[in-house]
Every structure is written in structure tokens, then in C-alpha cells.
């Protein structure tokens, strides 16, 4: 089908999207799990503040977090300048910046999913592990973490999906540079802004959807496995 003969530029956008979305998962994973756990299990000063900050990207139009990232991490930004000058790292206008933008946007989803899952872990099991001589750290890794696996997987798939669809923050923070930051959504947006670009946009939409389906399918398999390990019925059929 002609509809599916993609130009090199489109394939580049596809590959870039995959790269960014995978790194977005990686980037949200550890902080997401940590913050989710913290919010589920600990009381500390500034908890509400932390929770609010994590959720902000969800609440604001994506342009705003994008703009804030620019102020913070742009080459002239407070942190970005330092990163650039001391470490030689540039995030603005690079694919790394795109990863950061989508990670920030995905973080609330990841954190909420993990938090929900951790809350539902029976804290009696953690206590049991401790009576068997496991330190808090070990309990976290050997009990809490595996038992919240379904939540972590949900969080990661949401992060991946969000990254695939992230547009506003990305274009605001790193712009639309072909081959560097033009992910699928940016490419799709470009086509929708051109009269008669609908067909091309549709091609890319199909591509996006296929990618998302593959990710969804993979996550389903992982989740079923995790659930089976937990002895949950939903893991069986």
C-alpha cells in the first residue's frame, strides 16, 4: 500500500520517537519508583510540596513546563549553563532534551501508578521480611518492589505512551529540528498545519499507533508474567 511507503525523514522520526520513548521510560523509572514509594509509605516535611511539583506537568498546558525547562536547562538557563560549561553537556535542542521534556510530562503518571501499587502492598509482608533479618533497603528491593511490579509496569507503559504522544513541552523546550528533535508527534503536527497534509499526517498516525500497540502488547506480556508470579488470577488466562 502506498500509504505505508515512508520517506527517510519519516522513518528517522519514527526511530527518534522510539529512542526518546525508551529513554523516557528509563529516565522516569528510578525517580518515579522512588518518589512513588516515598509518597505511599513515608510522612515527611514537604511531602505535599513534592507531590504538587511532580503533578504540575499534568495540570499545566504543556507549553508551560516546556518553557520552565527552557529557563532551567537551556544553554543560558540556570542549570543548563552550568551543565554546558562545566560538563560540556547540552540538553537544549538535542534529543536528550526531548527525553527530559517527555520524562517530566510522564513523571506524574509514573509516580501515581507506583504510589497506587505500593499502597496496596501488604505492609505485613514487609514486616515479615524484616523479622527474617532483612534491612529496610533489602525489604524494599526484595518485597516492596516485586509486589508493586504491576504498578511499575503500568507506570512505564504510561510513560512510554506519553512520550510517544508528547508534543507541547517538547517543541517548546527543544524545538522542531529534523533528525534531532523531530519526533513523530512533531512531524504529525507539521503535517496537520499544512493544507492537504492530512494524508501524510494519517500515515504517521498509523505509524504511531502501531508503535504504541507493540508497546502495549509487550507491557501486557510483562504484566501477565508479573501477575502470575504474584499468584494473581488475572495472570492466568
Amino acid at each position, binding site marked *: 500500500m502506498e500509504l505505508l511507503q515512508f520517506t527517510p525523514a519519516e522513518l528517522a522520526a519514527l526511530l527518534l520517537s522510539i529512542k526518546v520513548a525508551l529513554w523516557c521510560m528509563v529516565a522516569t523509572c528510578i525517580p518515579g519508583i522512588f518518589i512513588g514509594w516515598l509518597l505511599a509509605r513515608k510522612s515527611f516535611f514537604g511531602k505535599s510540596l513534592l507531590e504538587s511539583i511532580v503533578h504540575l506537568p499534568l495540570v499545566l498546558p504543556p507549553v508551560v513546563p516546556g518553557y520552565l525547562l*527552557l529557563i532551567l536547562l537551556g*544553554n543560558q538557563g540556570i542549570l543548563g549553563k552550568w551543565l554546558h560549561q562545566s560538563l560540556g553537556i547540552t540538553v537544549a535542542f538535542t534529543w536528550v532534551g526531548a527525553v527530559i521534556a517527555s520524562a517530566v510530562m510522564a513523571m506524574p503518571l509514573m509516580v501515581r501508578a507506583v504510589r497506587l501499587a505500593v499502597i496496596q502492598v501488604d505492609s505485613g509482608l514487609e514486616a515479615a521480611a524484616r523479622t527474617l533479618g532483612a534491612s529496610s533497603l533489602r525489604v524494599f528491593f526484595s518485597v516492596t518492589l516485586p509486589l508493586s511490579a504491576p504498578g511499575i509496569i503500568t507506570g512505564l507503559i504510561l510513560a512510554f505512551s506519553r512520550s510517544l504522544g508528547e508534543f507541547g513541552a517538547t517543541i517548546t523546550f527543544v*524545538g522542531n529540528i529534523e533528525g534531532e528533535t523531530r519526533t513523530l508527534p512533531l512531524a504529525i503536527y*507539521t503535517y496537520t498545519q499544512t493544507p492537504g497534509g492530512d494524508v501524510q499526517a494519517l500515515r504517521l498516525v498509523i505509524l504511531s499507533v502501531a508503535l504504541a500497540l507493540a508497546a502495549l502488547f509487550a507491557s501486557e506480556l510483562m504484566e501477565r508474567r508479573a501477575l502470575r508470579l504474584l499468584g494473581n488470577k488475572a495472570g492466568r488466562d
Partner: protein
Amino acid sequence: SSPAHAEQKVTVYAAASLTNAIGDIAAQYEKAKGVKVVSSFAASSALAKQIENGAPADVFISADSKWMNYLQDKNKLDKASRHDLLGNHLVLIAPKGQSFKVEMDKSFDFAKAFDGKLCTGDLESVPAGIYAKQSLTALGWWNAIKSRIVGTQDVRASLAFVERGECAAGIVYQTDAKVSSKSDTVAAFPDTSHDPIVYPVAAVAGSQDTAKDFIEYLASPEASAIFSRYGFSLAGH
């Protein structure tokens, strides 16, 4: 058409860059004529597609001819009422105090004139970006500079990039450059280097009589004063 059972009103769909100007004119118009003005500001593409799908618009003001043509091709406009309302100019800007020398000439080595990125609207979808590409091509600078161009969602974002020093240069409308206190205008592109920058206006097919009245009012001295205040020039002036 049937003022008997409804308060008279006119619905104006205008490109987002006209938000302030149309807002002020609408307020005056309401006071003068007792007709309520309802406005919707978004990207020209979005507005055009909404009108195509039956949005209750009476008047459409686009930021370029393309989307006006798009609707005209679909017979959604009152062709007779269409005319170019406003004009604008394309300028090169730099962050405040970081101006550099440029000659609008084919022999000038534009790529060497500054270090860093050049921001403008997305080259394929945002009108300013499209004009910018035309100019850069006409001046023979395109190949040397194209890898350093950052496309943005709209001109405002380009301006922000430049104002923050993220981009060493930007190509934006004169109207934007004029009101920006954090950037310097380096030079204006020759109007001949790109298609004429015009904001066409037209009444939507099947609109109420008030639409034509409002379009007429846009040409009035009161309206012109407001447009000038925001840096627009009337088309053909």
C-alpha cells in the same frame, strides 16, 4: 438574519497573533454598534479546519493566504468579501546587546555572521517559518544555515528563544520584534525575498449580515489605529 429572537452577534475566528488587536477592536465595535463580538483565537490551521467542519464562524482572519485558500477551495467562504487586511514584514533579530552585522545580499556569508542556532516558526507549517525559508533560499543562505535552524510551534516561541539567548538569531515578524524589549532587530528581509505577508479576511459562507459590517469596520480609521498600535500595517499601505 433573524435578529428578532437573538441578540445580534458576530463570531470572529482570528489567528492567534491578532488576539490583542481584535480584542480591542471588538470592544469598540460592541460599544459603537451594539453587536456582540465573539472571538476564537487559535492557529490558522485549526480555525480553518473548524470552519470546514461547521464552526459557527462569521468572519475568518488568517495569518496567511494558504488556509484562506483552503477554505475558499472548499466553498466555505463568501468569496466576494475576501481581501487582504493586514501586512507585515520579516525581520532578523538577535538577543539584546548581541546584535551582529548582516547584509541582505547573496554575497554575504550569513552562516558565519553569528554562532549558534537560528530560530523561526516551523519551516513547513508555521507561516513565519515558510516565509523565512523563502527568504533564506532567495538570498542563497539556505544550504549553509539549514542545519542550525530550530523550528518552533509559533513565532512567539521563536521570539522567546531569542530573548532568552538560547538562539543567537531569529526570524520573526516586525510586529513581534517591535514590542520585544529583550531583543534587537538586526535587519529586515526585503519584501521581495518572500511571498507577500498578508492577513486575509473573509466572511464565512452563509454568515449573517453583521459579518460584512464587521469586516467593513476593520478598515475604519478606529480599527486601523488599533492595528498600528500593535505594529501591524494595513495591507497595501
